[in-house]
């Protein structure tokens, strides 16, 4: 029976691929399988449909990414209750949710290159949660703008969007993330096959538009948006064919 190669140390896993590599002998000893986007349905079936118990360290790694990604939200809630959102709380909320979204998005884009070049496959299960947290914070960011800042005044919002070009860029980034959030599940990965990977390249478009959005909204000090831009550009460069393998063998 064909089994997918487990996510072990030192393996450069290409997420999204379904092809398996025969592993081990004829015995059907269940191997510790990673839970996440890298587990194919074939594995689950081979275990009688039961979820395989993951190694404890894997669970710790998963808890870590959730604990980390939730920190900005926890801080926002704390600050909103203790008056730490400045005299202009809507502006503070907008800025902080936007930054959290951008950071999560960039980190999620960094997972695959880091796991490959840095040979740290344990980060792979972080990619989806980080991407979804990016979408979560981006949704909070949008909701703050539309509902809190502009009070769901659609005429005013439309006028504002037409005038503020940085909002056009930001809306584009958000829209690019919607199909990614919707198709983030394993089911969709299976359904779309190789097209899933192509679709999820939109994550780079979202990151680029988000950086442009940031660049266009600051007054004169462009240091922060430029820093994020450099990060996104580096991650894009790592996607160029040959760059990663060259770095890996360096």
């Amino acid at each position: 029976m064909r089994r997918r190669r487990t996510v072990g140390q030192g393996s450069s896993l290409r997420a999204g691929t379904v092809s398996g590599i025969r592993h081990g002998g004829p015995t059907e000893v269940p191997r510790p399988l990673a839970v996440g986007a890298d587990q194919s349905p074939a594995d689950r079936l081979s275990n009688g449909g039961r979820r395989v118990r993951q190694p404890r360290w894997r669970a710790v790694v998963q808890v870590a990414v959730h604990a980390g990604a939730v920190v900005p939200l926890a801080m926002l809630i704390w600050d909103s209750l203790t008056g730490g959102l400045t005299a202009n709380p809507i502006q503070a909320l907008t800025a902080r949710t936007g930054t959290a979204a951008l950071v999560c998005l960039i980190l999620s884009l960094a997972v695959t290159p880091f796991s490959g070049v840095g040979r740290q496959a344990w980060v792979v299960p972080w990619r989806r949660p980080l991407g979804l947290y990016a979408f979560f914070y981006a949704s909070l960011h949008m909701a703050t703008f539309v509902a809190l800042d502009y009070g769901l005044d659609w005429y005013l919002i439309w006028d504002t969007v037409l005038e503020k070009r940085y909002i056009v860029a930001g809306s584009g980034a958000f829209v690019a993330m919607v199909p990614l959030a919707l198709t983030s599940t394993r089911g969709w990965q299976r359904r779309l096959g190789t097209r899933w990977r192509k679709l999820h390249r939109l994550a780079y478009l979202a990151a680029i538009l988000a950086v442009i959005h940031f660049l266009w909204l600051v007054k004169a000090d462009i240091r922060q948006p430029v820093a994020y831009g450099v990060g996104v550009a580096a991650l894009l460069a790592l996607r160029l064919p040959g760059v990663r393998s060259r770095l890996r063998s360096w």
Partner: protein
Amino acid sequence: MDDRRLREEITPEPVYRRRHAIMRAAGVVPMIAGAGLVGCGQEEVAGQAVVPTPGGEQAVVATPGYEEVLTPFESVTSYNNFYEFSTDKDGVAKLAQSFKTSPWTLSVGGLVEKPQTFTVEDLASMFMSERLVFRMRCVEGWSMVIPWQGFPISRILDKVIPNGEAKYLRFETVKRPDEMPGMRGFSPYAWPYVEGLTLDEARNPLATIATGLYEKPLLAQNGAPVRLVVPWKYGFKSIKSIVKIELVARQPTSLWMAAAPSEYGFFANVNPEVPHPRWTQATERRIGETRRRPTLYLNGYAAAVGSLYAGMDLNKNF
């Protein structure tokens, strides 16, 4: 509009609210103190919109929820754009704590007959300060209503006597990197902070030199010990912690004009019809309010300063 009317105190908040409640109970229809109504029989008293009521009486009215109330002291002193200290608006107050505001001198010179240098004590003894309540509208789209203590800068001009060549005032903020962290290291701004006014603008009674706030001397984060307040312009024109005023013949280049000339002009008059290149200026958020409010032409001071710009193309002279 005579000086005395303009400098009348804003109605204290409890009186204002009581009066407003009576007005509403009396069935007076509130009108929006928004753009377009200026000039339609509307006058202003220290920034409050005053409209004739059906009974012919003058009264202060506003749309419920759009009343103009003083921004709380805590907000005014903890939400500051003072990049010399920090670009974090809520971080300025803490960093400004160690800023020395005494001894302090303000030198006024340039194209004048009698250049002088004033200490803060001189300013207090030579010029009587009054409580002046003005709106302050930041170019970023938020605003406050602040009760300053100050006097018109024209009184200083009367003392130094600008000569015939003087056409502009050039203001300069103190430059102290050792006390102002934002000036240290790599900073995208060409310190010290510089601002300017035309001589006519400076002679207008609303152009104010402020030394206090909420009946107390200015705190460092608000531009202690002496600053400019030009309420009909975007907040960045109201230069803080001034050390030098110079009468000059050529239009000065302000720090923001140098930083982004396509976005920040010399006049920087509040104008909902003239958008910033990257965002609209049609609405603003009054600190403390949940709904946005429409931005007023010249921040609601058109009656007092509008004539300064008669016939000017305000899109070109932004």
